[in-house]
């Protein structure tokens, strides 16, 4: 069995708001194997990005453990955490907001090297910056450009170079391509796949775009309102989704086939508020198969065999079919 790099156990993150406790991430457990890409999908506001930030402790968890390479990062001291940061990095969604507009490209990429005192001399550091720019496909002449002078794809390459600077093993990709043009998306995704192979990286790939996630992930986790509702390898997820929510999501992917009539599940209503969420199954309010049991009892994440986990009382009873 593959080696686990990151293991999450009963992770919770609650935010205090004026209206009550916001359950952004509510008792989530999963693991990521070394060298794989775990896709994390869900609607906006379901807690995907919060989960990503908890995994590298950009946010402090309310409860639960994030075990990286055998160590619970939530227990680390400030100093230990600083050393740990070299191992885990993040690429952000918006390449416009994630780069300091006052700094040049080389300033941005050298920041991690400066604050961690990775290189003893400026010349060595600059050589490393040039190397990184080359790795992500940025021309050396752009070293002194400012981010606003570059297009979205190049900006995202800067973000990737910054994340790679400290030679991390684990990178959280927080919707890295959703702000980019489709033509550029493919370039960036390919670049990240190449980098993963070259540097043996492990990714958590967060996205709301199922076709992108399908393209890059080894396994996929579907989140709904702070909970993981289904977790499986990508083939199983796309061919045999068992949770009604995953089925609805997958039925919404347009297929480039003319005569195939697919069943389309249209979800009614809206995502309930994560502030003081309903009892029972979180999805019950919008589920077409809902029963009284769903409203009263919260389903556990059940093992359906073959590393396929589903949080539904009736998992396996309803299939997504073609009409």
């Amino acid at each position, binding site marked *: 069995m593959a080696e686990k790099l990151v293991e999450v156990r009963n992770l919770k993150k609650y935010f205090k708001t004026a209206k009550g406790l916001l359950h952004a991430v509510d008792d989530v457990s999963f693991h990521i194997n070394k060298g794989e890409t775990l896709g994390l999908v869900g609607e906006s506001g379901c807690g995907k990005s919060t989960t990503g930030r908890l995994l*590298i402790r950009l946010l402090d968890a309310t409860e639960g453990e994030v075990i990286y390479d055998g160590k619970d990062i939530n227990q680390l001291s400030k100093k230990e955490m600083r050393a740990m940061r070299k191992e885990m990095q993040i690429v952000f969604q918006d390449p416009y907001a994630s780069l300091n507009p006052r700094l040049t490209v080389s300033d941005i990429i050298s920041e991690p090297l400066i*604050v961690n005192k990775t290189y003893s001399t400026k010349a060595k550091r600059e050589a490393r910056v040039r190397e990184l720019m080359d790795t992500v496909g940025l021309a050396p002449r752009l070293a*002194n450009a400012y981010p606003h002078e570059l297009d979205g794809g190049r900006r995202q390459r800067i973000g990737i170079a910054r994340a790679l600077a400290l030679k991390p093993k684990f990178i959280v990709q927080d919707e890295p391509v959703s702000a980019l043009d489709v033509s550029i998306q493919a370039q960036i995704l390919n670049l990240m796949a190449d980098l993963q192979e070259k540097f043996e990286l492990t990714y958590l790939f967060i996205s709301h775009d199922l076709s992108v996630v399908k393209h890059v992930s080894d396994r996929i986790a579907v989140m709904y309102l702070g909970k993981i509702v289904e977790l499986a390898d990508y083939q199983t997820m796309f061919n045999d989704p068992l949770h009604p929510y995953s089925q609805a999501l997958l039925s919404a992917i347009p297929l480039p086939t003319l005569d195939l009539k697919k069943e389309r599940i249209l979800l009614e209503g809206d995502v309930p508020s994560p502030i003081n969420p309903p009892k029972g199954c979180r999805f019950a309010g919008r589920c077409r198969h809902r029963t009284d049991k769903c409203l009263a009892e919260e389903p556990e994440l059940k093992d359906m065999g073959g590393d396929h986990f589903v949080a539904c009382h009736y998992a396996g009873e309803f299939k997504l079919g073609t009409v």
Partner: protein
Amino acid sequence: MTKNKAVEHAISEREVKKRSQWGMVFQRLKRNKMAMAGLVILILLILMAAFAPVITPFSYYYQQLGSRLQGPCSTHWFGTDHLGRDIFTRIVYGARVSLQVGLISIGIATLIGGLLGAIAGYYGGHFDTGVMRFMDILLAVPGILLAISIVAALGPGITNVMIAVGIGATPVEARVIRASVMQVRDQEFVEAAKAVGTSDLRIIFKHILPNAMAQIIVQATLGVAGAILAAAGLSFIGLGIQPPSPEWGAMLSEGRQHLRDHWHVTTFPGIAIMTTIFALNLLGDGLRDALDPKLKN
């Protein structure tokens, strides 16, 4: 082949040569005519203050009671005041006091207010609440009253006036800087800096403050004007600059009673204050734009 490579390398080295940050700011500032006009006026004022004895033959306290309240003429360019002192001379010498008070007191306010505001805005929580409520208390007391109490406690004199005016202006600076820090704090590039292990101090100084600079500079240049006037107010009630030291605001206040019959007594100190503030505002606007690499054309 090798030669080609060497040439290529040389070219890329040259292109990649670091553009100095401040050099570029000045380059951009130079292109802004209004800002340069402001800078030139300000430099002239400073030179005027520095070389006052060379510029004017009179002394600022010499009274010619025989020629009181004379209008502008060839000897007394701006006329004389109610004690027969040459107004031009007093304005030239007054530049020393007014510029000093204006710039240094706002310097104090921006430094203290900026530091408190930046820390409060960045960390939030109890420290923020504590600092900002204290600033609210200071704001609740009218600025002039606050300055009066501070000067009354410390004693009159130019240094104490600067301290008093500086403290009086601190809460406003702190508020403005806190607000702009809070705006920048939640941006993703700050999170990115945290993710690579940047210390809080470096985040504040390298990432947040440069991006909050625009508001800070505008607020500071506006503050200088207020500080000059506040110092004038203190002088007027006898707690500020002691006579016979010339101070533009004090001259304005003294001339008030002659406003109806002798326009020149108040007009010229007023013009001096206005020119200074105008120049500072022009320069402040220009600096704000020059410091923003996004506005580069």
